């Protein structure tokens, strides 16, 4: 475990991807095989289930530190991470425990889950008092959750490829699916060759830039094709040798999370690669991104959630046709093959993103104005004669998104951030004016946001909050209403679950309105008028 803790420390002390990959590759070259399997599991969200609930963890840690629970809780609110708080408050060690492998610790954790509380307590307190600070932190992290060290499955796979000289995409395929780190060997998981290993190999995505200039600057309207821009997850769907593979833009293989596409095994021809958007498809209509979030990151999909939030792929490009890479062909040509390929496919699972007919640029502006009504976030413009390029390239694809809706609101509550923002108040709640029953003008909460300010602005607002706190509720503070911010959001819907009666989609801070007093902030009625 010492080398694993050292690895986590190295990963945690750098922001450079190359250094992270190197640290992981070094580890994969030197660690014991079974520790490697567990490391892969931990970094791809396959940790054993939590053996001890957090209430007990807090109680046992506070007891060991000889402090009251309230003091532990207050410390936790400031530190911002449970495992870190525990590692910090428990007394410094007197005698170091004998070293154990990472695998041994994880076996302990699996065993621990079934034990009586007294056994759990004794085990935890023994290890907290017998491990040096950083190992104590990593040990506790194994019990509580993700490491938040900026290592994606993709980055981990890259490092493993570097350490084993295996192809990265082949590795990604090997690591997907349901394997159990407690039983599988490194040989079986990583090294053994499997038939069809490279069938899953995706193409790099071509990414568009946001349109900066006017449409006229793009040249003749006739050279361009337009379609709506969908607000889901960019994905590549592959059918080869009777198998289906689904990749997302983070180049993560997620086939097993979306069983909807299984049916395409029968109907889609082999040697087909589609580029499109993964969208929630609820009762014949596109759902909201909030719906889709219920599916993202969920490894095992229950029948209930499958019924609640089914997904579909809205395809807009074809990269491989009859087993042949056709990315060099003109968009228009690929589009023709795409239409041909999608004919007769189950439309509730796979549909085409329609082309918008237009002869003049002016017509497009009208289409864009209607984007919100068809649940899209704007338009995509693609040059008809362009090939499918690699990565983000200017010139052939442009996204022409809708401007966000916005409103001026008053900062009313603040909470400390997490991770690199712990100890700074960076999570804010905003209010709009309304009248209560007595006819008084009051602020009602309408949205929370924690992004959109610069570090310098966060620091200034943090200082204001610390000096102008009215009341504290655990980690939350109510603040003297004084600061006004312009809040942007993508959509609005009536909601009975929100105090204001309105739910906003992706609220974020657009700017700090230092020029406005709180009296000049908007009202809830102003917001309701924006609901389509």
């Amino acid at each position, binding site marked *: 475990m010492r080398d694993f803790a050292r690895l986590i420390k190295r990963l945690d002390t750098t922001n450079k991807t190359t250094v992270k990959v190197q640290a992981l590759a070094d580890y994969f070259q030197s660690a014991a095989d079974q520790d490697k399997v567990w490391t892969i599991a931990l970094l791809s969200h396959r940790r054993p289930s939590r053996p001890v609930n957090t209430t007990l963890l807090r109680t046992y840690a506070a007891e060991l530190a000889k402090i009251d629970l309230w*003091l532990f809780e207050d*410390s936790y609110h400031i530190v911002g*991470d449970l495992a870190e*708080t525990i590692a*910090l408050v428990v007394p410094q060690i007197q005698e170091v425990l004998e070293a154990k492998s990472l695998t041994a610790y994880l076996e302990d954790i699996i065993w621990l889950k079934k034990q009586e509380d007294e056994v759990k307590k004794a085990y935890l307190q023994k290890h907290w008092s017998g491990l040096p600070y950083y190992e104590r932190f990593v040990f506790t992290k194994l019990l509580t959750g993700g490491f938040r060290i900026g290592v994606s499955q993709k980055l981990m796979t890259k490092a493993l490829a570097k350490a084993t000289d295996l192809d990265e995409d082949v590795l990604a395929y090997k690591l997907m699916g349901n394997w159990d780190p407690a039983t599988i060997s490194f040989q079986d998981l990583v090294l053994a060759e499997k038939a069809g290993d490279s069938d899953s190999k995706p193409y790099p995505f071509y990414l568009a830039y946001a349109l900066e200039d006017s449409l006229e600057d793009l040249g003749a309207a006739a050279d361009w094709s337009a379609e709506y821009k969908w607000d889901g997850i960019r994905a590549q769907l592959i059918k080869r040798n009777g198998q289906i593979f689904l990749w997302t833009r983070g180049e993560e293989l997620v086939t097993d999370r979306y069983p909807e596409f299984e049916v395409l095994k029968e109907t889609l021809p082999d040697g087909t690669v589609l580029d499109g958007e993964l969208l929630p498809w609820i009762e014949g209509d596109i759902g909201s991104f909030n719906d889709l979030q219920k599916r993202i990151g969920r490894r095992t999909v229950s029948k209930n959630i499958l019924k609640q939030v089914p997904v579909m792929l809205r395809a807009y490009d074809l990269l491989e046709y009859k087993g042949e890479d056709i990315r060099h062909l003109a968009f228009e040509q690929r589009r023709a093959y795409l239409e041909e390929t999608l004919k007769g496919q189950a439309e509730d699972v796979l549909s085409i993103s329609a082309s918008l007919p237009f002869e003049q640029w002016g017509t497009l502006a009208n289409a864009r104005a209607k984007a919100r009504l068809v649940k899209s976030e704007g338009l995509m413009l693609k040059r008809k004669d362009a090939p499918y390029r690699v990565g983000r390239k200017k010139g052939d694809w442009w996204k022409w998104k809708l401007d966000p809706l916005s409103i001026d609101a008053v900062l009313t509550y603040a909470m400390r951030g997490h991770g690199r*923002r712990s100890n700074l108040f960076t999570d804010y709640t905003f209010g709009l004016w309304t009248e209560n029953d007595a006819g008084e003008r009051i602020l009602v909460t309408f949205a929370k946001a924690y992004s959109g300010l610069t570090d310098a602005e966060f620091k200034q607002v943090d200082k204001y909050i610390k000096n102008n706190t009215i009341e504290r509720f655990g980690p939350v503070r109510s603040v003297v209403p004084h600061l006004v911010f312009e809040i942007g959001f993508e959509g609005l819907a009536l909601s009975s679950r929100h105090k204001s009666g309105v739910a906003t989609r992706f609220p974020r801070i657009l700017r700090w309105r230092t020029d406005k007093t709180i009296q000049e902030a908007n009202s809830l009625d102003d917001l309701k008028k924006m609901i389509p």
Partner: protein
Amino acid sequence: MEMNNAVGQLFFLKWLYFMSSSGNHSRSSADNINRKTPLLVFNDKGIYCPIADIYIDAWRPVDKCIITHGHSDHARYGHKHYLTHHNNVPIIKHRLGKINVKGIEWGEQVSVNGVVFSLHPAGHVIGSSQVRVEYKGEVWVFTGDYKLQDDGVCQAYESIPCHAMITECTFGLPAFNWRPQAEVMEDINTWWADNAAEGKTSIIFAYSLGKAQRILKHLNTDLGKIYTHGAIEKMTEVLRSIQDFPTTELITRETQKKDLLGQIVIAPPSAHGSPWIRKMVPYETAAASGWMAFRGARRRRAMDRGFVLSDHCDWQGLLQAIESSGAEKVICTHGYTDIFSKYLRSIGLDARTEKTQFEGEVLESEKEAV
């Protein structure tokens, strides 16, 4: 170390002399002060002794002010008369320019209107004091900023028995537990040696008064040369009259990048990310601060390394200081005041919080106004 009466009297006269404008006035108004008024109060200008009409570490200009130490949130510009430990005199003169300042010894008693003031080592930085205030047998202590650990640079902290203690609590959370200085310095020296082996320059960020000299004093000079930023060099130069430090070399326009490879540079936190630093590639950066105990703080600062080293008390240090003083009444000034005073009440002390403008150890660079 108590002063004998004759010497005490002498300084009482001097004190009155340099504050001659209000000497008689304070005596007559003192009689009108209700004895229920605490010996020290907090007003909008600072910590104030109404009977003696004297402030301690005032944040607005006042007539007479006792200064605990040279950091800018405690030693401010604009007072008419300053009284401080004599080791702090060159420091505040360097920072504040021409001021009317009087330096005294540890334990030397200064009486004003029946109130006896004396300064005692706080162990925070060179010349840092606690202020002991006694009136008719009642003793108050204002700690200023302090730490219990002997850092080998400044006079070590001395526990003062008192009835009421006004304490800072910058790190008043059980999450803060300092390791012994020798271990942290060993880490810093190892880090320097590792960087040197890779042909890189080591840049460590530390306050120009206090932390910089504490690190400097304990660097392993066998590893190479120690370079400094101007702010650090100037302050260290001032302190060399009080304490011995290894030789340092100021970085100037003439300093070549290759001269710095493998060496260590001590710079103020405000230099982080500046063009001055960027010229030194390849380098590794580190910060030395109590806040480096927090992973979030380490990552926010985007430092390659964070060493947990503070000139303030950790949790146990604060508790130990309060316990050994025997104080029944504790007033917490800056830091995690609410949590810390709540804890003190839970163990039976009469504890509360007072708002001041002291900042304690600030993570970012705003304190470094040199």
